[in-house]
């Protein structure tokens, strides 16, 4: 019988939630890396027992952890588990994220815009998102703050920037969102290994069609009142982008404000916020089997950043946007003031698609029937930063 494994990153550690295909009874493992911020963890689609985790701390910086047994044990790639390495050059460079400014392969390390409009140099802070390759368990992409894209081809031990993104020319116009200038979304096109989409707050969405060598902004149709030119090529605070793998040219975006849709691989976007109570939000995802069914969690903004009216509601559109229905069964409908962060929603690929999301209040909810009914898996974790789900045989 199929199983699901839910990977939860929180402000104070990682948790792994497992269940059978019914998704009613759950085992909870964790906290892993207790006390550390786990921005994201994700499994390889090729080898589901290969997991990557981004572990960070304001005190101690960035670490990468890897599990080869589905999360039972972890190690920093390059350091044998439990073994101090011999004296000599360190082997564990798995947290060495160095922007490539070399003359041969890199781009000059320019500046980007700071909150006050002045220019600041690029400075590595943390890994927001890890995206394992669709074909090679040792290959994985990392989206980092300050915004750049890195790739490892040796299981996370060594990282190399794909400098064409940061260096393509608009970098000085990129600026941080409230959470920092982060590259938070990486989408690999299953039908075209040369095509990758990424998104940055606050620069916008970008696409490469040559495996990461060159990039172009894909923000036509986005409109943002908070930048001097609302229709600018870059500068938009894209919160998240989602795609159904069966239809890789169709993208859905939750922007700071506005839910957007593109039918031409990001070349143009149109707004599909429709009847949402607020079009601000962070998370967005697409049903595993119905590519016109999408989910968002509207959030009250600009400063509150919790759900409107004290009601936790997921909104579902079965028409690819514009027409939305509130999903409330099993979710708190009074006195609820949580947020749902951008990477904290996921879908499984069981026949009856499961939908999952985590909240800033530490709850992780599941719907085993595509959103009709919800139940908490856990209620009292630290604030949830990310949720991913693996569907296992």
């Amino acid at each position: 019988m199929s199983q699901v494994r839910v990977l939860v990153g929180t402000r104070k550690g990682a948790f792994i939630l497992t269940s059978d295909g019914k998704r009613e009874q759950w085992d909870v493992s964790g906290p892993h890396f207790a006390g550390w911020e786990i921005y994201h963890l994700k499994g390889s689609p090729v080898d589901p027992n290969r997991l990557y985790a981004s572990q960070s701390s304001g005190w101690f910086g960035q670490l990468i952890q890897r599990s080869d047994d589905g999360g039972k044990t972890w190690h920093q790639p390059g350091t044998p588990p439990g073994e101090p390495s011999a004296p000599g050059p360190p082997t564990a460079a798995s947290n060495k994220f160095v922007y490539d400014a070399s003359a041969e392969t890199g781009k000059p390390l320019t500046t980007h815009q700071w909150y006050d409009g002045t220019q600041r140099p690029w400075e590595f802070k943390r890994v927001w998102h890890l995206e394992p390759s669709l074909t090679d368990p040792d290959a994985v992409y990392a989206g980092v703050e300050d915004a750049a894209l890195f790739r490892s081809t040796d299981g996370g031990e060594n990282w190399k920037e794909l400098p064409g993104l940061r260096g393509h020319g608009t970098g000085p116009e990129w600026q941080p969102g409230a959470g920092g200038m982060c590259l938070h979304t990486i989408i690999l096109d299953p039908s075209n290994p040369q095509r990758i989409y990424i998104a940055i707050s606050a620069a916008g969405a970008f696409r490469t069609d040559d495996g990461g060598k060159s990039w172009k902004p894909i923000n036509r149709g986005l409109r943002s009142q908070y930048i001097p030119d609302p229709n600018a090529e870059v500068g938009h605070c894209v919160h998240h982008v989602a795609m159904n793998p069966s239809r890789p040219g169709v993208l859905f975006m939750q922007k700071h404000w506005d839910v957007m849709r593109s039918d031409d691989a990001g070349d143009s976007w149109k707004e599909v916020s429709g009847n949402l109570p607020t079009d601000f939000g962070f998370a967005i995802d697409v049903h595993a089997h119905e590519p016109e069914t999408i989910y968002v969690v509207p959030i009250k903004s600009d400063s509150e950043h919790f759900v409107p009216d004290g009601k936790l509601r997921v909104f579902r559109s079965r028409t690819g946007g514009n027409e939305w229905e509130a999903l409330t069964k099993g979710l708190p409908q009074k006195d609820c003031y949580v947020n749902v962060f951008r990477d904290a929603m996921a879908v499984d690929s069981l026949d009856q698609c499961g939908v999952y999301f985590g909240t800033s209040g530490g709850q992780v909810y599941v719907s085993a029937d595509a959103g009709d009914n919800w139940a908490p898996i856990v209620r009292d974790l630290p604030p949830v930063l990310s949720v991913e789900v693996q569907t296992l045989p």
Partner: protein
Amino acid sequence: MLPHHLRNLAQLRGEVELEVEGPVTQRSVLDALEARYPMLRGTIRDQVTRQRRPFLRFFACEEDLSHEPPDAPLPDAVASGAEPFIVIGAIAGG
């Protein structure tokens, strides 16, 4: 002496004793520490600039040595092993 989280990372209990070749300085102590426990690279000093991470402080012999030059000799009591060189998380965040 290392903070709890770094001891966990390196799977250590208690204090770390290090043999340091040449002058005993912040740099030589941290180089020796990272050589023996490579999983700590980048957690105390930046991987590229080798600067102390801003939320960490270095104490020894009841003195704050955080702003001393990295190649300045550490106190004799630290060099002889009588007193610990302490890496500590700055109090922040409540």
